[in-house]
């Protein structure tokens, strides 16, 4: 297994290199460069030139690429041109934040999605099934940022203005922690973090949860048709065991594949949700970096995104092997 993981990671290298190269080309092909943010009446053209030189932007593009590649391969991600910080420290700050948000959403997506999917499959064609299907469809069809705004409007904005609104249903609209986070006790900190996670993770995850529920439902229905379910029933097992033991584990297989597919999707959605909820994550970093032409930061964040996706896929494959004994990696 270890050998397999190592091999997979090694195989991912050309993929990742391909991605960063592609990004490098796109970013450099686009008009504008990072000095543009210093185009300001108090900034003289000489200063701009000086900066270009400091940043190595005066070299031909292939030299820039090779230079970047060399330092990248030696583990030096460089310094952000706009934030003037080592990119490593920016990433060290942002990646956990993104992982917290995506991770929570992921748990939410799969927990809720799978549960609802099972209920729907078991009660196929019931009113409950139809209601859930339709509401899932509606939720799935909402733009995530729109949903986020609506959530803020209701659970943060109106909630504070309405006297009768229960305090338990009032949530912070932005940020990862309260301002007084540092002053809280251990449990208080955890509670505060969770409290701040509620709205963004719902905005980010609920659409995907709806879609997981749909997949889970059809996967479950598919599995329920299988011969071995009939075998299990013929053995006289209670329906609960049949569904939760025999059907569930099999039905989870295609869902695990989704896991790998959803992470890039989550990261994408996170870009918008991070804006709405002022979440200091990777999504905003990359968008800002792109708009400011912060080349090294764009490259590094793209790389990290791609790495996260590769790892997500790897995890999905490993999980797959855990659930499905037919799959063995050596």
């Amino acid at each position: 297994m270890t050998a397999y993981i190592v091999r997979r990671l090694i195989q991912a290298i050309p993929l990742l290199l391909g991605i960063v190269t592609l990004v490098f080309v796109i970013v450099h092909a686009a008009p504008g460069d990072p000095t543009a943010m210093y185009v300001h009446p108090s900034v003289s053209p000489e200063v701009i030139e000086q900066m270009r030189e400091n940043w190595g932007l005066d070299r031909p593009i292939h030299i820039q690429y090779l230079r970047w590649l060399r330092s990248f391969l030696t583990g030096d991600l460089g310094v952000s041109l706009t934030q003037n910080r080592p990119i490593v420290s920016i990433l060290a700050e942002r990646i956990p934040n993104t992982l917290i948000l995506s991770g929570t959403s992921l748990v939410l997506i799969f927990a809720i999605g799978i549960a609802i999917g099972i209920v729907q499959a078991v009660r196929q064609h019931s009113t409950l099934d139809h209601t859930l299907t339709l509401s899932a469809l509606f939720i799935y069809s909402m733009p995530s940022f729109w949903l986020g705004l609506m959530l803020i409007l209701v659970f943060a904005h109106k909630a504070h203005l309405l006297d009768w609104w229960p305090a338990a249903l009032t949530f912070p609209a932005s940020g990862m922690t309260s301002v007084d986070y540092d002053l809280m006790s251990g449990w208080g900190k955890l509670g505060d973090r969770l409290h701040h996670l509620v709205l963004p993770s719902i905005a980010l995850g609920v659409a995907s949860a709806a879609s997981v529920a749909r997949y889970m439902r059809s996967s479950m229905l598919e599995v329920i048709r299988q011969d071995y379910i009939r075998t299990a029933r013929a053995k006289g097992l209670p329906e609960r065991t049949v569904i939760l033991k025999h059907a569930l584990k099999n039905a989870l297989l295609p869902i695990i594949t989704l896991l790998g597919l959803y992470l890039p999707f989550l990261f994408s959605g996170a870009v918008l949700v991070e804006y709405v909820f002022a979440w200091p994550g990777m999504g905003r970093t990359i968008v800002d970096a792109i708009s400011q032409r912060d080349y090294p930061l764009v490259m590094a964040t793209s790389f990290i995104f791609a790495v996260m996706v590769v790892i997500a896929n790897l995890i999905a494959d490993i999980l797959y092997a855990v659930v499905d004994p037919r799959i063995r990696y050596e």
Partner: protein
Amino acid sequence: MASDIDRRASAERSAAGTTHGPLVLVEGLVKHFPIRTGLLGREAGRVHAVDGVSFEIQRGETLALVGESGCGKTTTGRLLLWLLEPTAGRVVFDGQDVSSFDRLGLRAFRRRAQIIFQDPFGSLNPRMTVGSVLREVLQVHGIARRGTAERQISELLDAVGLHADDASKYPHEFSGGQRQRIGIARALAVQPEFVVADEPVSALDVSVQAQVLNLLVDLQRRFSLTYLFITHDLSVVRQIADRVAVMYLGRVVELRDCEALFQGPLHPYTQALLSAVPDPEAGTDRQRIALSGEVASPANPPPGCPFHPRCPHPGKDETCSCVVPPLRALNGGAQAACHKI
């Protein structure tokens, strides 16, 4: 019924039939499939699907290729038609080595050798009507001249016992047996001399199976076809074959005239196989030769005689487990691969 197809088919036959000797000759045919592991595709092993098979098929005869699943009989059929390229060995068709064909040669070969498949559902394109399937074949090979295609199609359908109206229907509108007839019509459309029938009746119910078997026999007579009949069902073999080749783990273990084989099988495997086939007439009192164990995996064939781990032969010894027995000619045109015969 002396139709256009009959006439032309026989005319071409007489024109083409200049060479003598077997229509198909197979020599030392080997097909190994690499087993690739990981995403790098390193070759971890090889499946010995076909491991040195030689035989010949005479014009107008039916050679049955019999064996249990995984013995390589289907692969052998594909190799004969050059749908797969052999790892080693050669296929000689009507005196010409198939591997020497260029694109045009191969195209001509495709007109002379055809295949009928097992699966009546998977072998027809669900999105094409029967007519368009046949029309395509006729057009691609330039068999149909302008205006004659429709007539040829209805003749073909008629030949396999379908109605001319069926041309405008889609495969799913037919029963299993009828689809198998369509598959046969498609193979016959190019007026081949040689047909590989790959388990053509295995998926059919008994009553329909009989219809298709009879049809195959009739067509063979009418178009002077040569069959390689691949099947796992010995009872069907007895009904249709002239000669039988029994395969085990990628090798032919016995090759004989059909009646002789059924009368007195030589190879221990053939004996066991024959005894295992249930027969409604024999009742429960038949003596069965019980085999133990499972067929070895073709990815990991045992050394020596491939059958030796299961062989019930009392004289089984060291040689069996070390030396691969060659297919030897015995009396009366029989061939068998066993050290103990």
